[in-house]
């Protein structure tokens, strides 16, 4: 599991710079109302302190939405800081991003770091 220790912070920073320049991962906002026009299949439910599904494969350009169904706040944070982190999501709050470049993106809940998940982005 990759973690953000000082050794790979530099790499994370490089990734962040790359991302900023090339827009490999675009964002549709931090928290928003239910998007009825979005790709409903790309929903990750946070329940019982777990991301479900834990691994989600999406096409580049598709939206991904997390929704918190727990009575406990959770966050969505990229392990390698490849996308902007969510703020703390209270019960029934959502967080949406748009998948960018193909690749594997691991993330976790920074409040309960045992909770981890993976987004696999494939070519559209």
């Amino acid at each position: 599991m990759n973690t953000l220790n000082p050794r790979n912070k530099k790499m994370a920073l490089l990734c962040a710079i790359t991302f900023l320049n090339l827009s490999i991962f675009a964002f549709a906002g931090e928290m928003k109302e239910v998007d009825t026009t979005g790709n409903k299949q790309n929903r990750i439910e946070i329940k019982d302190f777990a991301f479900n599904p834990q691994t989600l494969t999406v096409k580049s350009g598709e939206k991904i939405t997390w929704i918190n169904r727990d009575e406990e706040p959770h966050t969505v944070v990229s392990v390698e800081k490849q996308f902007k982190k969510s703020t703390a999501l209270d019960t029934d709050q959502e967080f949406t991003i748009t998948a960018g470049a193909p690749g594997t993106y691991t993330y976790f809940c920074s409040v309960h770091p045992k909770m981890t998940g993976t987004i696999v982005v494939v070519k559209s």
Partner: protein
Amino acid sequence: MSDYISHDHEHDGIDRRGFLQCMAWAGTGLLWTISGGVLVSRTLAQIAKAGAPLPATDLSFLQISDSHIGFNKDANKDVTATFQIALDRINAMPTPPAFLIHTGDITQLSKPEEFDTFDQVFKSCRTKDVFYVPGEHDVLNDGGKLYRERYLKSVEAKGSGWYSFNKNGVHFIGLVNVLDLQAGGLGQLGDEQLEWLEDDVKGLGADTPIVVFAHIPLWTVYPDWGWGTSDSERALGYLKRFGSVTVLNGHIHQVLQKVEGNVTFHTAMSTAFPQPAPGTAPSPGPMKVPAEKLRSMLGLTSVQYKQGKTALAVVDSNLS
């Protein structure tokens, strides 16, 4: 006191099976004490009948934890009211505590208005001195900036908010283990804080009683639920030479205790809602109990130190 000792194999007053079942006791209105390695317990009713305060000691302080102001789900729709009850209990103590320790999760969502409510309600507490450490709920979106601005005014905090102080010959250490958590990991102290800790205790005599407090347990309670601190072993290593170390934590909303050599680990009840015993539910989320049972699963922890005694007496009482 012997009411609850059913297995005393070594005739030392310690019921080891009962000790392991202390989880269950938390809900039964018991005060329990471990002093000098001897476990004793008394029901609240017994204390009330005796009509006397606990014995006078050289230092008495109180731990309050996990108030979660702002939480409003089924497990407790009015956490402000139960927090107020806890304060009323403190105000009613025959001997007021010298100070309070709050072991984190003051708020549910780190919102300024939640901190405001906490501060407003707290004004009714007769005991004004409080020493805080943050819970993960207090540092959600700003890395603890607001928390530090409000709750570290009376201490000389270092780094992300850790500090130490002395009272009546006891050395107190408040640690922060809820920041910069790593994916897949547990609570974390980090190198900078650990180096500070090593230096902080360097000049102390081994006979100095040590009290360490932090939000997430500094012993591995249940790693599957993140109930532990990844680098706590290193911290405890620096404290190994001391004759009396008391570790007070919150986070898990239930009383658990472990004695390991000279170190007594203890977790406190919340004033907001209970959480399930390790591994007994799909997740550690808030536990719903019948309304009439809720207050028996919320509570406070009183700690007393008497000069010349090695172990501090740690006594839990619920809010029923």
